[in-house]
C-alpha cells in the first residue's frame, strides 16, 4: 500500500484527542477504575475489551459525562471535561439498548439532537437525509422503532448518534443484540462508516473477535486497570501477560522454569545457516566462514564456549564432525536433540516437566531466566502429525478429543505428564479421509519462536 500506515500512537508529536490522566472512579468501597492513564488519538477506532465488571462501561460513561471521576482528569482536545454536563459535550454515545425514543419516528429520532442545537429546518432536513442515506434507512424514515427489525434499529441508533458530527463517538456493546451473521456484516459497515466520516470511535465490547476485527488499537482491561494497549496483531501475537494471552483467543499455557538457552557446541553444530529471520544479535554477528562442508557455531556460540563452557567441555574441535556421523539419538533423547533446521539463536529454555527435554523459546527474554514462566502457545501454531515432525520443539501425546469446526479442527492432545495441549489443523481434506482420530498417538511440533514466554501471574 502506498499510503502511510495509520499509527499516531507511534508519533511523539501527535496530540491525543482524549487523555485519561490518573483517573480513578470509586463507587463507595468498590474501585471501578484504578489510576488509569491512556491516550486516544483522533480518527482512531479504539476498543475497550474485557470481561463484564472490568470497568470498561464506567470509562465510557465518564467520557459521555454520566459519571465524574473521583480522582484525576479526562481531557478532550487538551481541555478538562470533568465538570461539563453530558448535554454540553461534543461526544455522542450509541447505547447498548439503542435507547431509541419509541414515540418518535426514525426521522424524528435522528433529528432529535439536531433540533436541540439549531432551528434551521433546511439544515436539519439535509443532515437527516444524509444520515438516512449513509445508514441505508431512507425508506424506513416514517416508521416508529417498533416497526423495524433489530438490525435496522441498530442503524437508526448509529445514525442518531452520528447526526451531530461528534468529535468522539462512544459505542457501548453496539452489536450485542444482533445475531452472529448480522453482527459480522455490521462490523464491516461500522468500519466503513468510521472511515467515511473520520470520526473517532471508542467501542466497548466483551467480544474479543469483534474488537480484533474493527479496532485500530485494543485496550485489554481487568479489574479497573488496563493490562495492555496495542494493535490487534500485537495483542494476539505478543501478549504482555498470561491474562491477555488467555483472554484473547484460544491458547495453551505451559508453565515451567526458564533458563538462559545455552547455545552449546552440540546445539551450535546443528545450526547450518543463519536463520532467515535473524534476531538482531545474529544479524550483527554473521557466522564466520570457517568451514564449507560442516556447520559451524556462530560468533556467539564460540564466545559462549570460550568464556563459559571450555572448563567443562574441554577444547573446541577446530572442525566439527559432519552431521551424519552423529550417533543416532536414543529414543528418550529424540526430543533433546534439535533436528537440523532454522533455529534462531538466543532466548530461553523452559523446563516444563522433570525428565523431559526443555522447550526452546528463541524469542524469550533472557531476563526471565530462573523465574517461573508460562509458555503461551496458540493452537494454530502447533502442528499435529502421525510422523515425527521436523521442529525444534516436539511433544508426544494421545488424541483425547477433536472439536470439528468445519474449516478447522481443534485436537485436544494429552501429552506425557497429563498436560492437555490444543493443536489446530485446517481441514484440507474431507472429514472421512482425516488421518488422525481419537486415541491416536501423535506428534506435536512447534517452532522455537511459536510461543510467547510470559512471567507467571502473581
Amino acid at each position, binding site marked *: 500500500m502506498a499510503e502511510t500506515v495509520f499509527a499516531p500512537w507511534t508519533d511523539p508529536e501527535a496530540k491525543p484527542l482524549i487523555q485519561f490522566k490518573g483517573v480513578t472512579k470509586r463507587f463507595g468501597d468498590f474501585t471501578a477504575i484504578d489510576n488509569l492513564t491512556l491516550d486516544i488519538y483522533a480518527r482512531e477506532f479504539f476498543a475497550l475489551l474485557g470481561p463484564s465488571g472490568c470497568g470498561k462501561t464506567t470509562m465510557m460513561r465518564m467520557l459521555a459525562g454520566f459519571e465524574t471521576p473521583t480522582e484525576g482528569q479526562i481531557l478532550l482536545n487538551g481541555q478538562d471535561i470533568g465538570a461539563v454536563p*453530558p*448535554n454540553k459535550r461534543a*461526544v455522542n*454515545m450509541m*447505547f447498548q439498548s439503542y435507547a431509541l425514543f419509541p*414515540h418518535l419516528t426514525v426521522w424524528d429520532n435522528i433529528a*432529535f439532537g439536531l433540533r436541540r442545537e439549531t432551528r434551521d429546518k433546511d439544515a436539519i432536513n439535509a443532515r437527516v437525509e444524509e444520515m438516512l442515506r449513509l445508514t441505508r434507512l431512507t425508506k424506513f424514515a416514517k416508521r416508529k422503532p417498533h416497526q423495524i427489525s433489530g438490525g435496522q434499529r441498530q442503524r437508526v441508533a448509529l445514525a442518531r448518534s452520528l447526526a451531530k458530527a461528534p468529535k468522539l463517538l462512544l459505542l457501548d456493546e453496539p452489536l450485542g443484540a444482533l445475531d452472529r451473521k448480522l453482527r459480522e456484516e455490521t462490523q464491516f459497515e461500522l468500519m466503513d462508516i468510521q472511515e467515511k466520516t473520520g470520526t473517532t470511535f471508542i467501542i466497548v465490547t466483551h467480544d474479543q473477535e469483534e474488537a480484533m476485527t474493527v479496532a485500530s488499537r485494543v485496550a485489554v482491561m481487568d479489574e479497573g486497570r488496563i493490562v495492555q494497549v496495542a494493535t490487534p496483531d500485537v495483542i494476539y501475537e505478543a501478549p504482555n501477560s498470561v491474562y491477555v494471552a488467555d483472554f484473547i483467543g484460544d491458547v495453551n499455557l505451559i508453565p515451567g522454569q526458564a533458563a538462559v538457552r545455552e547455545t552449546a557446541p552440540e546445539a551450535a553444530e546443528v545450526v547450518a545457516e543463519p536463520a532467515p529471520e535473524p534476531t538482531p544479535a545474529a544479524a550483527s554477528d554473521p557466522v564466520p566462514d570457517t568451514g564449507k562442508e560442516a556447520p559451524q557455531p556462530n560468533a556467539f556460540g564460540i564466545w559462549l564456549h570460550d568464556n563459559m563452557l571450555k572448563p567443562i567441555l574441554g577444547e573446541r574441535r577446530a572442525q566439527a564432525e559432519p552431521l551424519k556421523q552423529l550417533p543416532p539419538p536414543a529414543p528418550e533423547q529424540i526430543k533433546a536433540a534439535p533436528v537440523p533446521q532454522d533455529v534462531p539463536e538466543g532466548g530461553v529454555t523452559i523446563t516444563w516437566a522433570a525428565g523431559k527435554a526443555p522447550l526452546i523459546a528463541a524469542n524469550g527474554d533472557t531476563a526471565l531466566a530462573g523465574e517461573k514462566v508460562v509458555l503461551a502457545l496458540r493452537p494454530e501454531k502447533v502442528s499435529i502429525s502421525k510422523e515425527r515432525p521436523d521442529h525444534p520443539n516436539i511433544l508426544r501425546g494421545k488424541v483425547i478429543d477433536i472439536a470439528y469446526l468445519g474449516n478447522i479442527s481443534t485436537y485436544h492432545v494429552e501429552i506425557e505428564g497429563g498436560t492437555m495441549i490444543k493443536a489446530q489443523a485446517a481441514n484440507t481434506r474431507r472429514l472421512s479421509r482425516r488421518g488422525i482420530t481419537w486415541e491416536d498417538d501423535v506428534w506435536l511440533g512447534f517452532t522455537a519462536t511459536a510461543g510467547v514466554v510470559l512471567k507467571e501471574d502473581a
Partner: protein
Amino acid sequence: MRRFSWFNVTSLTLGFAFLYLPMVLLVVYSFNESRLVTVWAGFSTKWYGELLQNEEFLDAALVTLKVGLMSSTLATILGTMAAYVLVRAGRFRGRTLFSGMIYAPLVMPEVITGLSLLLLFIGIGLDRGVLTIVLAHTTFSMCYVSVVVSSRLSSFDTSLEEAALDLGASPFEAFRLVTLPIIAPAVISGWLLAFTLSLDDLVIASFTTGPSATTLPIKIFSAVRLGVSPEINALSTILIGIVTVGVISASLITKRAAVRQAREEQAAVRS
C-alpha cells in the same frame, strides 16, 4: 378438559351476584313507575325527566365536576413530580421517610384526614367552599397518582433519558420530550383515578365543604336520609352508565393499540 364444571359455574355466579346484584336492582328500580322504591308498578322513565328539572341536583353535579377536574389535575402534577423524584433521584437521605409519607394517606382513615384538614382550614382562616374541597381532594388523591406513575417509571429504561441528554437536551427538555410522552398512559390513568376518587368521595368532602358547595355524593347522602327516592336511583343509574361506557371504551382503545403494535412488529420482522 371440562371448562365449566358445576363448581366453576356456581362460584362464578355467586361472585358476580355478589358484585352486581345491588346495582342491577338499583337500575331496575330507577325505571319504576311507583314512588315507592320497593314496589314495582310498571316501566317508566319519568324520574329521569324529573331529575333534569331538579336544580339542586344539577348544581351539585356541576360542583362535583368542577372539584373533580381541578383536584385531579393538581394531584396529577404533584403526584407525577413526587413519583419522578422517588424513582429517579436515587438513594438520597430521607428517601424512605419521604416515600412512606407519600403513601401514608392510602391507609389513613378518611375521617382523620378530613378532620385534620378541617382543623387546618379553620386555623388559617380559609372559608370553606369549592376551594377547600379541591385542596382536600388533591391531598388524598395525589398519593394514588404517584403510586401509578412510579410503577411505570421504575420499568422505564433510564438510558432513554441519558440518550436525550447525550444528544444535547437539557434535563427539563429530556423530561418534556422523552419521559413525559412515554409515561403519558400512566399519567392519564393516574388522572382518571384521581378524578373518580374525587367524584366518589363523601367523607372528606363533608368535612371540608361549606354552605355554598354541595357535591353530588353529599347531596345523595342527605337526600337518602329523608328516604330513598326513585330520582336518586335514576341519578345513580346515569353515573353507572357513564362509568361503564368509560371503562369499556378505555379497554377497547388499549386492546386495539396493542393488537396494532403486535401486527406492526411482526411486519417489521418479516420485512
